[in-house]
């Protein structure tokens, strides 16, 4: 019963936030809508026994990533409302049609082949301890490769930020 109420409330918030992100002309409102969506997804993680993942979702996604987005939106200029007119004539109706067709297709596939495995007796317990157990045994190599990726990303960001398009004197 509690789960049903949580699903309805936060599912509605998640959908509303996602729609406002796509439809609102001002990117700041869109970023806030996306933040609401991410927070409600964190609630769903808690409900589905992903405690650690929910904390990471709030800290990394809703915290760091969205703050970075807002920072860049402020930097690039928020007062300029995007011109919502489409330059390609047929693009917009085609995009809406493709979106609807995609949703129908997913619904058809899902309706015919939901998960076939039997439901487990007990859900996994996603605490820090259990996640770390897996992360530092089975997933150790991917974890180490991730550090390489993060170094490359930070070096790339610094290199791009220092790039100056004006020619040197």
């Amino acid at each position, binding site marked *: 019963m509690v789960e*049903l109420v949580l699903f309805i409330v936060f599912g509605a918030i998640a959908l509303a936030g996602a729609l406002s992100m796509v439809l609102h002309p001002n*990117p700041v409102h869109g970023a806030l809508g996306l933040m609401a969506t991410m927070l409600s997804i964190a609630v769903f993680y808690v409900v*589905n026994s*992903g405690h650690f993942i929910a904390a990471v979702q709030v800290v990394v996604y809703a915290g760091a990533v969205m703050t970075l*987005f807002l920072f860049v939106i402020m930097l690039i200029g928020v007062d300029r409302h995007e011109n919502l007119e489409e330059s390609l004539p047929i693009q917009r109706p085609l995009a809406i049609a493709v979106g609807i067709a995609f949703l129908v297709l997913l619904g058809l596939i*899902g309706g015919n082949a939901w998960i076939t495995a039997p439901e487990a007796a007990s859900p996994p317990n996603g605490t820090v301890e259990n*996640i770390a157990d897996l992360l530092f045994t089975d997933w150790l190599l991917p974890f180490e490769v991730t550090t390489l990726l993060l170094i490359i990303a930070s070096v790339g*960001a610094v290199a791009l930020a220092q790039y100056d398009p004006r020619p040197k004197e």
Partner: protein
Amino acid sequence: MDVTAGWYLALGAALFVIGASGMLLRRNALVMFMSIELMLNAVNLNFVVIGRHTGDLNGQVAVFFVMVVAAAEVVVGLAIMIAVFRRRASASVDDLATLKG
């Protein structure tokens, strides 16, 4: 009424489709980027829900890796966007037509 895994998967599918439509409908590079993040989140939700259904913790580890890669991707993507903005003073992808023949 029980909330089964299928409900969450349907919600994840809806969020993914909204993200994909945002990618197609908008011309602001930042909003397109946020649409990508939305699609990643929808798939993450599916990972966690199916992991709960099958009693497998590996789904949550996969979500962890997706988050790390997404964070790295956001850093580089936003840096590129700022570099483009310095040159063109616009965040619209329509203005990036330098390679047009």
